[in-house]
C-alpha cells in the first residue's frame, strides 16, 4: 500500500544515522516480542549501527540501543524523518 512512497519503508531499508517513526508492526510470530521491547507505533527510532555482511542492525529508541536481525527489522514499517 505504501510501497511506492519514498518515505514509507520497512526498518531494514533505513539509511544509517537516519531516524524514522514506527507506523506499524507486521503480523508475525515475532510481533509480540518486538512490541514487548517497545517497538510500538508512534515511537521514533534511529539506525545507529549495522554489522557488516548483512548482519544485525542496532536501533536507538529513546535511551536504549536495541539490536535486531534484518529479517526482524523488516517487520517494522516506518516513515522516514
Amino acid at each position: 500500500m505504501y510501497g511506492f512512497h519514498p518515505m514509507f519503508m520497512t526498518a531494514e531499508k533505513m539509511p544509517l544515522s537516519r531516524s524514522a517513526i514506527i507506523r506499524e508492526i507486521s503480523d508475525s510470530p515475532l510481533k509480540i516480542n518486538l512490541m514487548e521491547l517497545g517497538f510500538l507505533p508512534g515511537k521514533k527510532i534511529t539506525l545507529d549501527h549495522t554489522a557488516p555482511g548483512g548482519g544485525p542492525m542496532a536501533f536507538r529508541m529513546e535511551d536504549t540501543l536495541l539490536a535486531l536481525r534484518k529479517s526482524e527489522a523488516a517487520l517494522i514499517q516506518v516513515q522516514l524523518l
Partner: protein
Amino acid sequence: MTESPTHPLVKTPRIAIIGNPNVGKSTIFNQLTGLNQKIGNYPGVTVDKKTGMMNFKRNTYEIVDLPGTYSLYPNSEDEIIAHRVLNQLNTKEKPDYVLMVIDSLQLSRGLFLATQLIDMGLNLALVLNMADLATKRNIEIKGFEIFKALGVPILSTDARGEKGLDQIRELIHQRNFGNTSGFIAIEEIVDKSLLQNVKEHFNLQNFYQAYQLLRFGTKDKTISAENRSWINHQLEDQHFDLDAAQLEETKLRYKKITAIVEKTVVRKEVKNQESSIDKILLHPVFGYAVFAAILLLIFQAIFAWSSVPMDFIDGTFAQFAGKVSELLPGGPLSSLITEGIIPGIGGVVIFIPQIAMLFGFLAILEDTGYMSRVVFLMDRWMRPFGLHGKSIVPLVSGVACAIPGVMAARNIGNWKEKMITILVTPLMSCSARLPVYVILIGLVVPDESIGFINLRSFALFGLYVLGVVGVLGTAFILKIILKTEEKSYLMVELPSYRRPRWKDVGLTMYNKSKTFVTEAGKVILAISVILWVLATYGPPSKMDAIRTAGQEKLALAPESEHEVIEAETSSLLLENSFIGVMGRGIEPVIRPLGYDWKIGIALIASFAAREVFVSTIATIYSIGGDPEDDLTIRQKLDQQINPVTGEKVFNTATAFSLMIFYAFAMQCMSTVAVVYRETKGWKWPLIQTTYMTVLAYLAAFITYQILS
C-alpha cells in the same frame, strides 16, 4: 490472602525479585543476600534457581532471584520459570511478595511487566534502579505520580553505588507491598464467561490469572494432564484466538502506560545519545580487531595465570596422597583412597582456576555491556552454521576449557541453537589437548624454520585450526539434522557501558566453580574410581606372580637399580590389569590407525582426561623418574621399536594419527558430566561422545593411511 501462611510465626517470608534483563536485578539480590546464596535447580529445566537469605533487624527473609524477562509471556526457558513461579497455582514455589526492579531509563518497558504483575494480583513493590544514570541524562521521574497511577509502593535506588539498599531492606521488613489489581480489564478483550469458567475451575482470584492460565497452562507441565486437556477443551469450545488476544492486551497495556509515562517523566534536554565508544567497538573493521585483541588478552591471562594455581593444586594433591599412603596401612582400601579417590577429587579441583578465571572474564565482559556487542558483531557469521550470535561465548571459552563453554551455552534461548553449541564446543582445541600435542609434535616434527615460520608452531597452529574446522563442519551437519519449530531470533539490548561490579564478578566466579564441583564432580569422581579399579586389578594369579617376581628382583638388585625395577614392575602390572586386557582387546580396532595395544591402554585411561595420555604412556613404557619431565618421556618414546616391523612405534604417521584422534575425540569425562547436567539426561552426552569418537577414528584412520 497471600499474607496468610499456615504457620505465620515459623514461615520465613519469601520475596521474589523480578525485572527486565540488564536492570541490575542481580546486583540488588547480591547486595541483599551477600554470600548467603544457594543455587538449585527448577525441575525439568536447566535454569539455576538462585535463592538467598537476607538478615535484617533480627528477621530472616528468603529472597529468590528470578531470571530476567520482558513480560509474563514466556519465550525462553528462563522466562517460563518467572512465569511459573509467579503463577498462583504453584503454591510451593510461590513468593509471598514480589519486588520488581525497573531501569529508570526504560520506564515504559519496565511498567509493561509491572502492570502485568499488578493484574495478577501479586503483593508488589517497585524499585526504580539506576537513578544515577537518569539524573546524569537530565531525566526526572516523578515517583509519587507513578505511585498514584499504579497504587503500589515505589523506591528509587542506585544499586551499583549501593544507594537506597537500606530503603529496600526496610520496605521488605515493613512488608510495605501493595496489592491492587485491574490495571487493564482483561474481560474487555477475552470472553467473560470463559474467564469465569477457568477462574472457578482452578479457584483463582481474578480474571487476569484465568487469562494467563488459558494462555500458557497447556504448556506448563506442572499442571496435571487432566487439567491441561480441560483448558484445551475450553479454548476449542470457544474458538478462542489467543494470539489475537495477546496482541490486543499488549496494545491496550502500552497505551495506558504511555499515558502514565508522559505525565511522570520529564526530559530537561534531549541530546544525541549515540555512544562514541560504540563507533569503534561496533565498527565493521575496528570492532572485530578489538574483539580479537580482547580474546588474545584473555587467553594469555588464562594460560599464564591459571598454570600457577593448577600446578599448586596438582602438587598439593600428589603430596596429600603421599602423606595419606604413609599414614594408612597398605592394602586395597588405602590404594583406593590414595590412587583413586584423592587423584579423582584432584582431577575435579584442578579445573577450578580455569573455570573461575574464564567466568570472571566473561562476567566482566557481560557486566560492562561489551558481550552483547560481540553477539551483535558475530551473529551474521555464526548463522550459516546453525549457531546464534550468542554461541560465540561458549566457543571462545572452549579454547581454554569446554566445561565453562558448555555451561555458558545456557543463555541461548533457541533449543536447536543451544544444542548445536553444546554439541560442538568440545571440538574446540582446549588446553588439556596441549600436553598431548606438545609431546607428539616434539617427537616427529623437526625444530626447524621455513622463513619466519617454525615448523612446530605451525603444526600446533594447524591443530587449532582443525578444531575450528571440526566445530563449523559438525555444526553445519547438525543444523540439517536437528529439527525445531522455534523461530530463531536476535533481539538484544546493547546496554550502556558501565564499570564492572567486582563483587558481582567475584560472586559469579565463586558460584560457577561451586556448581561445577558439586554437580559435575560426582560423575568425574565415580569414573575416576572405576578407571582406578580397572588399572589396579587384573586376573589375580598373574598379578600376584608379577608382584612376587618384582619383589624378588628388588631384593637381589643393588639400591641404584631399584627405581628401574619398580617402574618395570608397575608397567607389567598395568599391562596385565583389566585395562591392559582391554587395551589388547581393542588392538585389532586401533591397528589401522597405527596404534599398538600399549597406546590402546593410554586411549582407554585417558578417557578420564586427555592429559592422562602423557602420564599413562610414561608408566607403560616404564619411564622412571618424574613423569612431568617431557624430555625424558620424549626420548623414551623415540626409542620404542615395533618388534614386528622393526620400525619406530612413534613414527610420523602414528604420531599425527594420534594428534588428529585427540583433536576430535571426546576423551574428557568432565565435559560428558557437564553436558549431562546441561541437557538433563544421558541421551545427548552419549550421542556426542559417539559421534566425536567416530569422527576421531575416521580422521585418524585417513591420516595414518595417507602418511604411512
